[in-house]
Every structure is written in C-alpha cells, then in structure tokens.
C-alpha cells in the first residue's frame, strides 16, 4: 500500500511545479536504510535542509539541455548568455562514431543555438533575440521542432516566452516547445525532467492515431548507452517488440507518437516519473515505475511488467529462461573470481547514482556476491522509498545518503566506510583514496559491449569492469599518495557528512 499521495498533473499549466512542492523531494540525507524506511512508514515527511556550504550542482537548464540537445530533427535554443550553452559543446558530434551497422541513422544534425544575451539585452529584454534565434534555427535546418530552454537571465528579466512563441508559431512549420528551466526556479534540479516532459507532452505529443501494441516507450536519458540500446533491441526483436527510446536521440515523430505505445518502461526513475504519469493521464498509456533492468532478477521483473501490457507473456518467459541460462554459468565463474581477487572476502561498494540505480544496483550487486556499504542518491523522492523498503527486506541494512553531487560529503563517507569500490557518476572526478573507482555507466554514444549494463547480460559487463577495477587500484592510490586533497583534515575527524546542512528555519 502506497503511503505516497499523488495528485493529478495539470498539463495545461505553463510548466510543471517544482519537485520540492509536488513530491516533497529532498537532497540532504544521511542515515540508514532502515531509518529512512521506518520514518517514511510512520508518516514522517522527509525533512528539507539547506546547506551553508555547497559545491556546484546542476541546474534545471543543464539537466534540460544535455538531454534535449539530442533530439535528432529539432534545434535547441538556449535562451541565455553565451555561457549557458557551453554544456552542449560536444553533443553535435557525439553519436557520429556509432557504426551504421549498429543502427546509427545516416543523416541527422544535432544543433544548438544560443540567443547570446548580452549586456544591452539584459537592459532591454531578450525577446527580440529569442525571436531572431527561432527564425534563424528554422531557416538553417527546417527542423520538425524547436525547443526553447530558458535561463536564469531570461527568467529574472521576465521575458514573455509564451508571447514570443505565440507570435512566431504561425510563421513557421516547426513546432515550438518552450521549456521553463530557469536555473534558479527549483533547488531540485531534477525539476527540469518534469519541465521538459511537461513541455513535450503539452506541445508535441499527439493523440494516438492507432495503438501500437508492440511499441514500448523506454525512458532513456543520458545513462542509457548505445550498447544498452543494441542489447535491448536484440531481446525485443526476439519477442516481437519494438523500443521507442525517449527523449535521448529521439526524433520529433518518435516523441509525438509516444501516445501510441503499449506501455512506458523505466530506466531512470528521476527522469521518467513525470513523463510516464503525463502520458498515462493524458493518453492512457500504462506504465510501471520499478524495477530498473539491472541484474538478472530486476531484468526478469522488468520484462514481466512489459509482458503484462503487450500480451507477450509466453515469449517473454521463454526469453527470460534463455537469457538466465546463458548468463548464469558465466556469472558463477565471475563471482568466484571476484571473491578470489579479494582473498575470499566479499567486496563492498559505495553506489552514488540517480534514484533508479541506487535502488536496483544493490540487487545486482548481491547477484555478483558484492556487499553494499552505502548508496548515495542525488535526490530522494518519497516514492523511491517504497522500492528501497523491498531492498531492505531482501538485503538488510546499509547507509543511505543524498547530496545532489556534493563531493566533499562523498569523500567524508568514503574515508569513514572505506569500501573496496566507489561506483559513481562518470563526471565526479577521481576520489583519491585506497580503493577502486569505476563509473556507473559509460557515455551514451558508447557502443562497445562493455558499455552495456542493462538487461541480463549487462551484469557480466558490469562485473568484469568491477573485477578489473578491484584488481588494479593504482590510479586512485597513486593520486591519493602523490597529490593533495583540498579538504582540511578536521573534516574527516568529525563524524557528520551533513555537518553543513541545517534544518530550514521556519
């Protein structure tokens, strides 16, 4: 029974509410899995705290553009000063190295324009520049859609984005999609996922012309690599299903027809939550929120959820059996060899990731014979605690932390817990310590087999990387020994990773 009261979304509103208001999301937590679950079950709301010291996190704009820049026949306009588009620098070329034989489309452009707000625009308003950018984007690419991402500057000035959209839309064929991702709008930058999804559903998704019973929307933002897609496609083809990956690298049409899918399946709880709900509420597309397809059991459950909505129960049961029978002997060998590389002891890991990975990697880790020392999520939404409760029942207790990318807190926890392995976001940098470190997932254009972590065979790829990392810790150890840490020693001598967090004064 869910304790979490969900309200219907208002898809006619200008944009989505912020997540701290809609869901009661937090991004400061340190405790145990059991205390998190118990508090939640006793009806205690997650407590909001502010940090008096912070390191740079993401904002709504960064979270929006790094995904929507990849829409293949769209142009992204970053409506802000030139620096707001700096995060898009590498994306135009990103998927170009994927071989055509692995399904890369031959012709596509990923284009991003900055409206390049300068000092005089800040004085006189940025609407003229936005209009100019839309027309320029339309003329250069004749795109199917133009996504407009707003910035702090445009928000503080109060540019009338909808006014510009309404006045320019009749002049051009490209569908204009304004996303309200002003960086300051929410302390939970994952609000950007809601704002993007809101805009996509409001402006782009069309009512279904027909139901496509074999089509599965797969929430695929950023952390789904090309190799994951290739593997999921392989399995889908075996059971007569097709995947519609959204939003990363989708076409405008693929987004428009999300309403026709049989079901929407998750790979990222944070990204998918609003989009899945919006598609259900507006177009009746069913969805499931858990599990994520990581490890054998989770992958089997994930496929079974898909089966429920596609009528493929028989085919999918056969697929699950076949995959598990292929993977299991290799997994047994891998487990033995992992254990051997640690002289018989169980390896322990610290998992820092988004909500889906922190909730479902523990089960994958258990299948590899690895113990979880702690999980650290960027944010905690109340609903994910229901998934964590199941994890707790199966695997027992471990530490839980949430920080929205605060390396000083991770560093504190790593120093105290001393796990064998830290597995985190590929961007965090190397934690200098005695112990290994690997990235959770590779980059999205990575098509090599080791970049596949999802569905059944992904556990082997993950395991082989972990094994190699555990066997050679020279990078983290060398940097630990030979280069300085920026944090003063008292930080590690006091016990509280949340020492800089304080409850909000009311």
């Amino acid at each position: 029974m869910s304790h979490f009261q969900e309200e219907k979304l208002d898809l006619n509103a200008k944009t989505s509410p912020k997540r701290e208001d809609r869901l009661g999301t937090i991004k400061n937590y340190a405790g145990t899995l059991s205390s998190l679950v118990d508090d939640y079950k006793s009806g205690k709301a997650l407590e909001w705290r502010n940090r008096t010291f912070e390191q740079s996190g993401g904002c709504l704009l960064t979270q929006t553009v790094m995904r929507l820049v990849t829409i293949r026949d769209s142009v992204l306009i970053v409506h802000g000063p030139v620096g707001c588009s700096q995060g898009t620098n590498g994306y135009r070329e990103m998927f170009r190295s994927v071989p055509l034989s692995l399904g890369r489309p031959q012709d596509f452009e990923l284009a991003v324009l900055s409206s390049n707000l300068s000092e005089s625009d800040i004085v006189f308003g940025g609407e003229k520049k936005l209009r100019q950018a839309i027309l320029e984007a339309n003329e250069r690419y004749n795109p199917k859609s133009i996504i407009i991402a707003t910035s702090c500057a445009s928000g503080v000035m109060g540019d009338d984005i909808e006014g510009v959209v309404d006045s320019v839309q009749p002049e051009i064929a490209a569908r204009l999609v304004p996303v309200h991702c002003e960086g300051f709008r929410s302390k939970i930058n994952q609000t950007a996922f809601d704002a993007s999804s809101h805009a996509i559903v409001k402006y782009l998704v069309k009512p279904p012309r027909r139901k496509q019973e074999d089509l599965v929307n797969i929430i695929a933002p950023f952390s789904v690599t090309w190799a994951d897609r290739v593997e999921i496609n392989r399995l889908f083809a075996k059971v007569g299903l097709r995947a519609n990956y959204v939003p990363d690298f989708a076409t405008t049409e693929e987004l428009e027809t999300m309403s026709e899918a049989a079901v929407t399946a998750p790979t990222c709880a944070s990204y998918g939550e609003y989009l899945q709900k919006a598609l259900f509420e507006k177009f009746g597309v069913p969805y499931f929120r858990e599990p994520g397809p990581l490890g054998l059991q989770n992958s089997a459950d994930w496929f079974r959820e898909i089966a429920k909505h596609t009528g493929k129960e028989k085919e999918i049961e056969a697929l699950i059996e076949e995959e598990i029978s292929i993977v299991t002997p290799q997994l047994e060998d891998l487990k033995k060899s992992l254990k051997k590389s640690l002289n018989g002891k169980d390896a322990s890991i610290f998992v820092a990731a988004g909500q889906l990975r922190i909730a479902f990697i523990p089960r994958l880790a258990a299948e590899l014979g690895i113990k979880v020392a702690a999980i650290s999520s960027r944010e905690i939404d109340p609903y994910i605690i229901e998934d964590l409760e199941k994890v707790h029942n199966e695997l027992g207790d471990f530490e839980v932390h949430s920080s929205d990318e605060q390396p000083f807190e991770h560093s504190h926890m790593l120093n105290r817990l001393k796990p064998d392995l830290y597995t985190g976001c590929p961007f965090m940098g190397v934690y200098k310590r005695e112990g290994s470190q690997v990235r959770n997932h590779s980059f999205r254009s990575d098509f090599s087999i080791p970049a596949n972590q999802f569905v059944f065979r992904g556990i082997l790829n993950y395991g082989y990387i972990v094994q190699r990392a555990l066997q050679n810790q020279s990078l983290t150890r060398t940097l630990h020994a030979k280069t300085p840490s920026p944090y003063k020693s008292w930080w590690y001598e006091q016990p509280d990773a949340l020492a800089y967090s304080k409850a909000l004064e009311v």
Partner: protein
Amino acid sequence: MANLSLVREEEPADQATDQRCLESPKYTCSLGGALAVITNINRIIPIIHAGAGCGQNQLLSFRMAAALQGIGYISGVNAPSTNMSENEVVFGGESRLRDQLRGTLDLIDGDAYFVVAGCIASMIGDDIDSVAREFAEEATPVLAVNASGFSGNSNTGYELVFETFIRKLVKPKPKVKGLVNIFGIVPYQDIFWRGNLRAIKETLNKLGLKVNQFIGDASGLDGIKNISAAELSIVISPWVGVKTAQLIEEKFDIPYITFPFLPSGPIDTSDFVRKVAQKLKIPKAKYEKLIAAEEAEAYNDLNIAGDSCAQFGPALPFNIVAGASTAVGITRYLTRLAGFTATQVIINDDPPEEVRDEIIKNLENLGGLQPKVVFEVDSWKIRQYLKKSNYRLLLATSQERYLAEAEGKIFLNVSFPANSRLVVRETYAGYGGGVAVIEHVLSKFIVP
C-alpha cells in the same frame, strides 16, 4: 601584389557578434573564462556566486570540451558554489554568500579565496565586494569579481580576474632582474595552454629569464604577488591580456610588449626571443647564440620529418579553425617552413575590430597561395565556409570533425571546443612546436 587573392569575409557591421544569436559558439561566457583562470592558479580557491548550474555548466563542460583536462586540485563539481535559487533572487544573495565563504575558508585548504559572481548576482545587485571585505581579517585574502555571463566571453573573464588581482591584491615590489610576466594564453580557450606556457617559459629560461606564468604551475599566490616585481610583461595574443599589461604598466611602471600570435617553430620563436631580449637589453651575442643552437635543432627536426611531408602531403592544402593566436601561429609554420598550403583560415574567437588588420597582415606573404581569412564564431556559418573551401587537412575544433571525416579528409583537433583529444603536455609553441604539428598531422595520413 601582396593582397592579390586575399578575401576577408565577416558579418556586415550591423550584425556585430553581440547582436546576433550564435550556433555552438567557440567560447563561453565571462564567468567561464574567470573560472578557467582561477581554478588553474595553485591553491587559489574559487567560490562561484551564481545560479546552481553555472559551476557545472562551465567547469564540467571544460572537462569535456577543453581537451578532457581533469579537475586537478579543486574544480569541476568540487568547486564551491552558492547555487543561487529563488530565495536569493527574491531576498538577495549576500547572506548566502557570507555562509558559503565562511564554509569554504573553514573546509577548503587554500592560500586565497576568490568569489566569482554570475548573472543572477549581478542582476539583483548583490554587493559582493562588501561581503568579501567582511573577511578582511582572515589570514588568507578574499577577493571578488563580477563576471556575469552577459558581460562578455571567456577572454573578458580572463582579464577581469587579473584586473581584480592587480587592483586589490598586488602591492608594489622592488624589481627582480630578468623576471617577466606572461599574459594572453587563456586556459581551455587555448587547449594547449599548459604545454604552450611551459614551452615559452623554457625558452625564456634559456635566455636567463625567470617567468611569472601564474597559471598551470606551482607559483600560486606568490606568483600573483610577484606581478609587480617583473621587468616586463609579455602578451602572447593579438589582444587578450593587453588590458592587463596596460594596467600593470600604469600601476607599477612595468612596460609590456605584445607578440600577436603563438610563436611556433624556429622563425617565429627566434623573432619572439629577439623581441624580448632586445626589450630587456640582453647582449646580442647571448641571445643569438641561443637562437643559433635552437634553430639548428629545429631545422634538423624538419629535416627528419620533411621527407614524409614531401611523400604524404606535398603542398598539402589545409583549412584551420581556431583562435587567432593559434591559427596564425600554426599557419605561419606550416606554410613558411613545411610547404603546406593554407587555403582558408577561420578565426573563431571574435577579435575586436581594431586588431583584425594586424591578424590578416600576419597571414600575408608566407609563401604559397594567400589563404582566405574569415572571422566567424558561429559553428553553422563556419561549416558553410568549410564546405566551399578546398582542403585535404582540417585543423579545427571537434565540432568540425565529422564534416571533414565524412568526406575522408584528415582532421586534427587543435582548438576549443576539443572533445576528441586529451591534452596535458602537448604544445605547438616554441622551437619544437612546429614539428609537433607535423608529427600529429602526418600520423593521421600514414597508412601501413
């Protein structure tokens, strides 16, 4: 005859760069430029007073687009930031900044702390200087600069940081004989900045000089304080760093010279050495001896690589897309010494109007065809220029990579944004810099 085939193309005057939208522009904002400098001065700790994503958007993106250079001591997502949100927009951000500064001083081990304020702080009028002054009694200096994103580009941010150091921290010092300041090489905007500064420094060291390079070495706060002890400031850029050097001249009576492009290979590096040596009145015999030895070695390098130039790339036609300093430096070496043919030079870092003629002048009469010179920042427009040009080799940013490679042309990433190359020590500056370009270029051609 000099200008026979020279065509200069750029936007009409009514479309100055700050008046138009830009597709994938080849620089970032003032805040990014300021952070690029501060995070690369040893043990100077940045405090970003800006929207929550600004630190990540600049520093994390530099980690990718600035030739994959890692975060070092404190940068990337480690960088302290006030992560301003709605509360600060409504009520002001000074109190948040005060807490953040206290926390940073207590937690992060540094020799100086530098607040860099972005768009929000500037638009809501936070008085960052007065917050910084509240920390005047601390053992370490606390500085602050307003580098709002709309105030300019990366190069603006670079100058703003040095201007703040000079106005608020650097005190007059007795001159140290043979000490020179180097300006104009902007971290990340020049992806080879580490190696380039090292090469320049090593060359000047051989001349008996000591070099204040500030960024990318261990000098840190002491290096900054020693700005006023120099005998000369050397600006290696057509314009970036000139303001800084002028301010130093005004405040500390230290003259400056500019060398308006990256000296690459023997001819230009020797010119550079002569210019510096003459300004500092180093005896001619001393610097000519150095030049003779270095040149002999550099020409011998070319002798070794030259056979392959003739075999694999005779009079190889190339296009280059880079900042003015790099584009001019590399083009001059390849055309004047290695027999390559520059067909088009696209300057992508928006030099001010008053230095554009000089940039063109430095690309004239190099031997071979006269290249077409284009000033453009917008990636789409740059691609249109490339499509119309004849080349076999493209030296450019990673944003042009697949345009060239789709047609089987050879591509080498030499400028920002550089997502397809990891650069730590590599350099195209100095006596060995030219042959390094040839090594990297021809290694892409040679097929067993």
